[in-house]
């Protein structure tokens, strides 16, 4: 795929961030800061890397994206809507009764590949898709976005061993490393460092990138595809709440809460002015 310009992606990401804070504000609840930290990663995937067809979400040869950190589904929903998988109007129904947009990611949303929300399960699901693809001689790739707090889950490491054991070079893990989880800093709640060494020791090719730098993200996704015989994980260093200063400053407080109506305009303005 031809590379979009970094400016173009930045513009899209600004729109997605506005969608995310607005839909969460409308819902009155949800996970704001972790949704904002992964926006640029999900934009890089859906506007650069993934081969898919919004008009045919189940196209057999499509690349798959599994959102293992299912609580940050607002970002995925906004990206899917803007890519044309379903009408943007639906975004304002997030978390409401009867909506296709549930509080955590589900397959009821067109384009969403797996229902998640109980942390630690997405990488295993992605491995299953990758093993099935290889069995059928299909060359689709599978991407799985994990949280950094999610690295606490034992199943992540079971899945890491499985992917390495089966030499799944058609899978690419991405970690949204914003350094915070619901209970505070990772270093206080439960230290996951040395993260790079851990993944390397589990048999993965590891790439580190600035998770808000589109050039680095596109380079990392390209490099991951070139590595044969082992899976690749991209550790994307991010800022929790990225794009809105009062959310960044209180990113733990905004882990599981929405922007209040009175603060929405301020948030939107900051995102629009953001570089």
């Amino acid at each position, binding site marked *: 795929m031809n590379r979009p310009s970094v400016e173009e992606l930045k513009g899209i990401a600004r729109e997605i961030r506005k969608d995310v804070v607005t839909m969460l504000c409308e819902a009155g609840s949800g996970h704001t800061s972790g949704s904002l930290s992964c926006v640029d990663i999900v934009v890089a995937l859906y506007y650069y890397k993934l081969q898919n067809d919004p008009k045919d979400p189940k196209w057999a040869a499509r690349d798959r994206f599994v959102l293992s950190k299912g609580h940050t589904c607002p970002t995925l929903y906004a990206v899917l809507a803007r890519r044309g998988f379903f009408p943007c109007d639906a975004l304002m129904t997030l978390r409401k009764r009867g909506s296709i947009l549930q509080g955590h990611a*589900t*397959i009821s949303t067109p384009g969403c*590949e*797996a*229902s*998640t*929300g*109980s942390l*630690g*399960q*997405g990488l*295993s*699901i*992605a*491995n*299953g*898709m*990758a*093993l*099935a*693809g290889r*069995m*059928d001689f299909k060359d689709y790739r599978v991407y799985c976005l994990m949280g950094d707090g999610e690295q606490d889950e*034992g*199943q992540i490491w*079971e*899945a890491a*061993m*499985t992917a390495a*054991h*089966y030499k799944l070079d058609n899978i690419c893990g991405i970690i949204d490393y914003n350094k915070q989880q619901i209970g505070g800093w990772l270093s206080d709640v439960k230290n996951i460092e040395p993260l790079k060494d851990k993944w390397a020791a589990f048999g993965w090719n590891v790439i580190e990138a600035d998770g808000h730098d589109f050039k680095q993200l596109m380079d990392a996704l390209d490099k991951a595809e070139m590595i044969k015989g082992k899976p690749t994980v991209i550790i994307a260093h991010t800022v929790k709440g990225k794009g809105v200063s009062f959310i960044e400053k209180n990113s733990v407080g905004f882990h599981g809460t929405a922007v209040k109506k009175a603060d929405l305009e301020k948030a939107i303005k900051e995102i629009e002015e953001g570089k």
Partner: protein
Amino acid sequence: MADLKATRDGFGEALVELGKTNENVVVLSADLASSVRANWFKDKYPGRFFDFGVAEQDMMSTAAGFALSGKIPFAATFGVFASGRAWDQIRVSICYMNLNVKIVGSHGGISVGPDGASHQALEEITLMRVLPNMTVIVPCDSEEARLATIAAAAHKGPVYLRLGREPFPIITDYKGDYKIGRAVTMADGTDLTIVGTGIMVQEALKAREELKKQGISARVINLHTIKPIDKEALIKAAKETGAIVTAEEHTVSGGLGGAVAEVLVENFPVPVRMVGMKDRFGESGEAKELMKYFGLSHEGLVTAALEVLKLKK
């Protein structure tokens, strides 16, 4: 004496058949391939067999990924690990998406014997039947296990298949009419009904013979599918015989006993006695010895039958 065979053997044979007839069938194991007879499939179709080591949670969610890609995964391990260790993975990765994953829990029940309580699965029926979309099947002999496995592959949606390790005689005689969700009347009777599942159906038939000597006529129903439960057969038995004894090698709390009671209480209440494990763990011992010790035997069923008859109006 008739050939003895365990339900896990019927499962293993069916997998080999499915390997030939259905190219979408894949088999997943958590380091127990030979114990659960999945190695018979592995030997014939190595490219469609995947081991996950001692990692049941990873295996279940990976099975979900296979199912999302059009495969029909059979994920097999011991019942304690399948239903307990990986319960949340079965709930969120499999049942929530209503995926076509077949979960196979071998070594169910107290009849696992000498390995003791940690390995005697006594809660799977309860744990699995509370999950929406799940079908729960407990075969009573190896032939029924073979048919259940074939039927599970054809069924769309998640299935839990409970198997045992101990060999028992074949007591069923299906003529192409095995159907998930349809109970089988193994023997008719008028005074009470023993509703059994799994190997307890074998004990129920023995109990029926002993009751007959005392002039009591017992119907025996093989409730091989716990969910969806055959309400019609149960209500009919309650109406026609007026008393029910349930028989399971499993806890009665939420198990077969609980499931049958739920149907009867809401539709046609009659006296019920539940034979099964009563809020306790098992312990080491020989299979038959333990079954007798815990009352999971034809003797235990006769006692329960005489008790329930006293309550009958």
